[in-house]
């Protein structure tokens, strides 16, 4: 779906990280966690391409006055890393953005009985909040969140408000446990058995470690990937990753935008 949105708020939640709320059409309410959006940051050829972002949250604002309307909103959590995100950070309430959404395949919720383990690294936390909101309706959810330093740990309060047990770790020990989020997660997984699904998003080395743990312990595991994208809809073949069957003589490339961004870890080739 293509739509124009108005910025409702755009705040720096931690140095270099922003949370933006924009209006959205009601149809977006049926988007699933893990799906993503592509944003045209400016009505200009600079930047040229849309930028992909996860869905941090979708909700409805009640009518503000009698005769007013409910307003569906979309939230993104983003990190300023380059030109496009820097421009986004300068937007104000009332500015208008152009969206292509929802795109891709989201997380599969799986068996409601099992425990849900969310693992987020840095800005990889972004798609996990919307997921967590849906999961807590039926399941026990724990969140492991890691970052380089304490400023990379975002929105813990929001998750805790959902009643989710949250484990924080930082590489430099400035917040929570000192060490990698995957180490902390593995320690806690050891303590308890039972049916589990891991949902993870973050930098590639982290996802690799998560996938290793999932494989070793035979835990179901879905990962959300990033890739350089041009179209977001399977047309340009720019965003591919190697599937598990990939080999030089039998290529198995998958579009992150269309077949992902969420994959079962077993669908992918891990090196």
């Amino acid at each position, binding site marked *: 779906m*293509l739509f124009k949105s108005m910025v409702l708020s755009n705040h720096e939640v931690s140095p270099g990280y922003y949370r933006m709320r924009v209006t959205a059409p009601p149809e977006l309410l049926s988007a699933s966690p893990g799906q993503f959006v592509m944003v*045209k940051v400016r009505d200009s*050829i*600079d*930047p*040229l*391409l*849309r930028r992909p972002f996860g869905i941090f949250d979708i909700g409805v604002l009640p009518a503000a006055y009698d005769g007013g309307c409910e307003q569906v909103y979309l939230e993104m959590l983003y990190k300023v890393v380059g030109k496009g995100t820097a421009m986004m950070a300068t937007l104000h309430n009332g500015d208008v953005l152009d969206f*292509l959404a929802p795109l891709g395949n989201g997380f599969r919720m799986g068996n409601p009985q099992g425990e849900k383990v969310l693992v987020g690294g840095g800005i990889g936390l972004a798609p996990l909040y919307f997921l967590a909101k849906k999961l807590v309706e039926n399941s026990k959810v724990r969140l492991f969140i890691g970052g380089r330093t304490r400023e990379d740990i975002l929105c813990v309060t929001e998750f805790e408000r959902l009643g989710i047990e949250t484990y924080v770790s930082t590489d430099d020990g400035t917040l929570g446990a000192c060490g990698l989020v995957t180490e902390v997660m593995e320690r806690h997984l050891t303590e308890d058995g039972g049916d589990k699904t891991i949902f993870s998003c973050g930098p590639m080395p982290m996802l690799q470690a998560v996938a290793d743990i999932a494989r070793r312990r035979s835990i179901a595991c879905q990962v959300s990937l990033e*890739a*350089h*994208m*041009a*179209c*977001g*809809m*399977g*047309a*340009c*073949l*720019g*965003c*591919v*990753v190697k599937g598990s069957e990939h080999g*030089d003589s039998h*290529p198995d*490339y998958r579009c992150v935008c*269309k077949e992902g961004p969420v994959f079962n870890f077993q669908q992918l080739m891990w090196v």
Partner: protein
Amino acid sequence: MKPDMSVEIGSLKLRNPVITASGTFGYGEEFKDYLNLEEIGAIITKGLSLKPRAGNPTPRIVETPAGMLNAIGLQNVGVDAFIEKKTPFLRTISTPAIVNLFGNTIEEYAELASRLEQVPEVAGIEVNISCPNVKQGGIVFGTDPKAAATVVRAVRSETTKPLIVKLSPNVTDVVEMAVACAEAQADALSLINTLTGMAVDLRTRRPVLANVTGGLSGPAIKPVALRMVWQVAKAVTLPVIGIGGIMNATDALEFILAGATAIQVGTANFLDPAAAGIIAREMEQYLAENGIAAIGELRGALQV
């Protein structure tokens, strides 16, 4: 009165001159939720080879100033899977589908054309002699007029379908290439394919693209494309299809003025999947508002 937007590319009659460019529009189906495919003139499918191709390692794309580089490496499903899996959708639309094809040898080009000759969903063929991404591939054919003519003759002898040759801009003299292809009995020429470029990441000290170089497309290349279309349209009598950085109806009409019979929309499909339809509509609107009865009146109407 509704302006006459129809154009002819060889024996192929299009309802309007807006065609989607190869490699930027998948196999058409990807865009059906965003765009009424019946509103555009034709679609051109992703470059096709005899055997499936994996394409290049990633990253394959990067944004550059007012453009993008791609080094997809012509990943495609191969002709068998194309016929089996992609033609059923094409059958459901009345808009003609043109197949963009390439080979590593003259024989491969000819064999592909012959395979497609029997496929009724294929309304025409666009021969890519210009893709800069594949080492043994089009690059040789696309920069040498004799080699290009040989490819065109080989394909011509295997197909009765309208035959478009897509020219590379990475040459000293595009007119020489155009003339050679025209003499080899092409029905039309399309240009330009991408300009070969490169992007560097200062932080990692590596090329951004795994393939090192890639093809530059988007608004950045429009001035080069317009110049080449103008040069070629003056030099040949074949219909010319203009490509390169067309983002809106104004851009499209500029190419028509420069001599193009039709135009292709490439990178713009990524920014707005409905772009091709909007461009077709707005071109028609421009004609209506300016009292121009038929798009043909603008073709080559540039006053130099």
